[in-house]
Every structure is written in structure tokens, then in C-alpha cells.
């Protein structure tokens, strides 16, 4: 898995669009979801999740849904690759709350801003309270 912030992360435009569509569909609430990777470690699936807080400034994944989706990912031979959510009212950058609640240092955190043109999607690692941004390169196709 990519560790150096200078290393670009490749992400398909279809997955990007799925996240943007999800963010728009629940706007002005924050959306949240997971990104699963195939056995090669490439991100291949966006899985929209329920923000049980239904808030424009907070999100928390439905724990039951998180459990069942996590299990399904494992049983399909995939792995959890990233966590996404939207910032409907602010920049697509991890907030202090995001940093404090980032329990998954080995995953990518994707932040979407559905109100910019084009909609922003940025990608980070959050490790020990430190945010590292990676260049995100969108590629055509799935």
C-alpha cells in the first residue's frame, strides 16, 4: 500500500462519480461510505453507507451496516481500502474532529466537496494526528 505522500493514488473516474453522486444525493447532510479494494489492492468499489447523525457537520456510520459490509467485503476476498465522507459546507480537508476520530491509520481518507465546480475529491492518510495528502489521479474506466 502507498505510504509516501508524494506517491500519486490512482482512482477511477467512475468511483469518483459514485462518491460525488452520493454526496449530492444527501446534501446538505454529510455523506459517508467505504471504498473496497480487490486482491491486488486497487480500489474497485464504492459502498455508500448511512450517516446515522444526518447532519451537515458530523457523520457516523451506522455500526450495524459497518459490521455487515465489512464482513461482506472480507467474504468476497476484498479488503477495506478507504473511508469517504463529504464536507457540504467547508473545504475537502480533514477537520479537527476527523483527525481526532481517525481510527484507521492504514486506510485512505477521502474528502468530497459536492458544491465546488467540479466537485472536489481529495485523499489523505491520518496517522497519529498528522494529515498527509496524496496526489489523486483520476483515470477513465472502472
Amino acid at each position, binding site marked *: 500500500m502507498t505510504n509516501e505522500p508524494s506517491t500519486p493514488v490512482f482512482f477511477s473516474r467512475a468511483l469518483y462519480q459514485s462518491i460525488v453522486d452520493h454526496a449530492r444525493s444527501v446534501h446538505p447532510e*454529510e455523506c*459517508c461510505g*467505504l471504498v473496497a479494494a480487490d486482491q491486488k489492492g486497487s480500489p474497485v468499489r464504492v459502498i455508500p*453507507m448511512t450517516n446515522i447523525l444526518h*447532519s*451537515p*457537520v*458530523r*457523520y*457516523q*456510520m451506522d*455500526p*450495524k451496516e*459497518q*459490521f*455487515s459490509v*465489512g464482513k461482506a467485503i472480507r467474504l468476497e476476498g476484498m479488503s*477495506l481500502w478507504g*473511508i469517504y*465522507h463529504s*464536507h*457540504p*459546507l*467547508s473545504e475537502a480537508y*480533514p*477537520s479537527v*474532529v*476527523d483527525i481526532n*476520530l*481517525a*481510527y*484507521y*491509520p*492504514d*486506510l485512505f481518507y477521502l474528502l468530497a466537496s459536492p458544491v465546488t465546480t467540479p466537485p472536489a475529491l481529495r485523499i489523505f492518510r491520518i496517522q497519529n494526528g498528522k494529515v498527509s495528502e496524496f496526489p489523486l489521479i483520476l483515470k477513465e474506466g472502472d
Partner: protein
Amino acid sequence: MSVLVRIPTPLRPLAGGQSELSEEGTSVREILDNLIRRFPAMKERMMDESGELRRFINIYVNEEDIRFREGVSTPLSSGDEVSIIPAIAGGA
């Protein structure tokens, strides 16, 4: 009595890199105590200062959140699966 404990990726480095392991105990509390005895570094990540399970740590026994059963007192049967799942949350 032995149950299977599933360790989430963020805690695996603290548990010898294992994704699942076998642990002895008749309740979730016993499992957690034994797990922390084996891997002391897990304590701070899972428990708060008063020794209670952190709010953002969810634990499932088989398919059920222990909050909807008896919390850490939830009894276990041989062959049960205990999953530790840190919540995913944040905000703008």
C-alpha cells in the same frame, strides 16, 4: 472455553499482526481482559481512563452489537465470534 476474536486492521500491529485469534473467556469482559493481558498495548486503544470500553469501539458477538445485549457482560458460548470494530465517524 474458546472463542474466535476478529481484530480490526488498526489494532493488528498491537496484536502481533494477527487478524483473528483464539481467546478464552465466558463473557466479553473476560475476553477483553485476556486479550489485554496478552497484548497490553491494546488497552489504551480500547478502554478509557475508567476502564470502560471506549465509546467509539463497537463489539459484536456473532451478528449482534453487545450494546443491544448485556454490554461487556454479554455471555459467550464456545465457537462464538467476537468482532472488534472501531467506529467510523468525523465531521466538518
